[in-house]
């Protein structure tokens, strides 16, 4: 466990009356991808900005890459890279000029520079675009160039704030491939996202809601917090099926999704035959009934209701 390179204890940050981050604790190890996952306004960016030493917490302690972030925020900056949501690329400079600009800022030696530049261009698939103006790149390419700039020096910790927001699925996969290869090299990558399905790509995740931690652990552990399991029922009229099954014993919730209904049930082995029998008796047309793995969103909804946390739809 000596590989822990990021440790945050009891972080709290208020902006006026708003508690943006509320008593947050987590850690990350060398070579790990930690996801900070939650909807807009849940405190992800504030947490990352504190880790990067650009925003001081009201309460709490942080150690990042051996530096005390609260006591010595300048020290941490040379050991990490931080890519905010709106990363400063110069649109009137070319791809390679942007990378060199950041190499100057981070004082990368000229011996290392050439090799690193080529490596980053290759990894991001941008070698062919080195002479293109940054302003003429697509959204996904801009994010990749941002990461390349952030990595021109070799950080121990990489902090990325929503790098995949608005990026098409193909580019999103390429970005993740870059993150995995960095993790293999031993970098601790902390990445925030509002896409709950992206949580599955992280090795560990911190699930956030309204500034607080809902869960911290692996995706597999997260899914174990959902008692019972999930079933999917295909049908011509999912809405009719949903209305019916919600009244069945052992069905915790039911949600119409496309051409299927997803149910959370207390015990799938016991309830599946019961549900099949009741559905058949109802005369509704239905197709395959099968057990499915819960999505992170399912567990999020369960955790929020279980912990009695208010959601945005319950506080007016």
């Amino acid at each position, binding site marked *: 466990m000596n590989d822990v390179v990021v440790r945050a204890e009891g972080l709290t940050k208020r902006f006026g009356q708003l508690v943006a981050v509320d008593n947050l604790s987590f850690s990350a190890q060398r070579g790990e991808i930690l996801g900070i996952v*939650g*909807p*807009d*306004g*849940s405190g992800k960016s504030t947490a990352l900005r504190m880790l990067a030493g650009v925003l001081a917490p009201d309460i709490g302690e942080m150690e990042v890459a051996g530096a005390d972030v609260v006591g010595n925020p300048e020290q941490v900056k040379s050991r990490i890279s931080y890519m905010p949501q709106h990363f400063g690329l110069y649109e009137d400079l070319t791809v390679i000029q942007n990378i060199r600009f950041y190499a100057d800022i981070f004082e990368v030696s000229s011996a290392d520079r050439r090799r690193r530049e080529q490596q980053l261009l290759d990894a991001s698939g941008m070698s062919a675009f080195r002479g293109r103006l940054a302003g003429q790149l*697509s*959204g996904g390419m801009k994010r990749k160039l941002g990461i390349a700039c952030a990595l021109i020096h070799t950080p121990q910790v990489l902090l990325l704030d929503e790098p995949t927001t*608005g*990026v*098409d*699925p*193909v580019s999103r*996969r390429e970005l*993740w*491939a870059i993150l*995995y290869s960095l993790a*293999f090299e031993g970098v601790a990558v902390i990445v925030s996202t*509002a*896409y*709950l*399905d992206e949580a*599955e*790509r*992280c*090795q560990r995740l911190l699930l956030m*809601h309204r500034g607080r931690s809902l869960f911290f652990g*692996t*995706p*597999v552990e997260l899914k174990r917090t959902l008692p019972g399991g999930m079933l999917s029922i*295909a049908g011509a009229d*999912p*809405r009719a099926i949903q209305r019916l099954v919600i009244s069945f014993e052992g069905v915790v919730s039911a*949600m*119409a*999704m*496309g*051409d*299927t209904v997803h149910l959370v049930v207390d015990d799938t082995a016991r309830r599946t035959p019961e549900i099949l029998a009741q559905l058949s008796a109802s005369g509704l047309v239905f197709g395959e009934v099968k057990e499915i793995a819960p*999505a992170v*969103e399912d567990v*999020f*909804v369960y955790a*929020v*209701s279980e912990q009695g946390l208010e*959601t*945005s*739809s319950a*506080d*007016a």
Partner: protein
Amino acid sequence: MHNDVSIVVDGLVKRFGRFTAVDHVNFQIHRGEIFGLLGPNGSGKSTTIRMLCGLLTPTEGTARVVGYDVSSQAEEVRQHIGYMSQKFSLYNDLRVIENLRFFAGLYGVKGALLSERIAWALRMAGLSGGEHRLTGELSGGWKQRLALGCAVLHRPQVLFLDEPTAGVDPLSRRDFWELIHEMSADGVTILVTTHYMDEAEYCNRLALIEAGRIVATGAPSDIKQSAIRGDLILVDCTPLGRGLEALRHAPGVHDASVFGAALHLVVDAAEDSLKYLPEYLTSLGVSVHRIEPISPSLEDAFVELTAKGRSSAN
């Protein structure tokens, strides 16, 4: 009851100079259906919607919305549609009731119908009693439902939703989709445009759009099943890096990539690979903890379909 066709799009093209934003798009949407147009930013979704709203004239092709032609009867089209976007701005410095009255005025809702529809919208949004709150003080889920209420004050037969629940917390999102399903059950036709895979999962039927062209149409489960050539397999092994390297060169494996703490593979036939791969990996010093077939996600399907489109375009 779903046999009524509400939207017919036939050979729709929109060019801006030499750039073709929408390239011969065809689809039909039935009355009461929740239809999703799924594609990345810049794929032509918004241009299509703007043509269907009668805001932009097609270069070629036709589109009819509840029987009206979008080119020649744009005014009639606009009277029968509602539009809501997550980014769509309610006036934050107006009270809830003032926003509702403003949009009612815009859509020409008057007289006895006015108070009836406003009362309905407040009930639907769960804002009864909150009429005099400042809109800017409402949280995301409430604002979203108020925006929906504003968009349907005039009882449109067709509702356009542009990334309606992006970034909203999951509980509010589920409440929102419940409302949308209720409207669809009442016969309102719903067209959702989004680049979020998980939003698309809520639709009855989808069209996947890439570079102005539709690459697949069907129910989400059909698209997932038909898009992937071969099978998907999950391999949980250590060391992960060595496993990845080995599997990239293994026979019958098309693609191998890291997914969380495990690997995802696209293989010719799952049955063969499940037999063959454990031994193959073990012989290379990789320990296999778990290997099993998995179902493709909508994103898997999307990547597969658009990658095909990209390679054939080159």
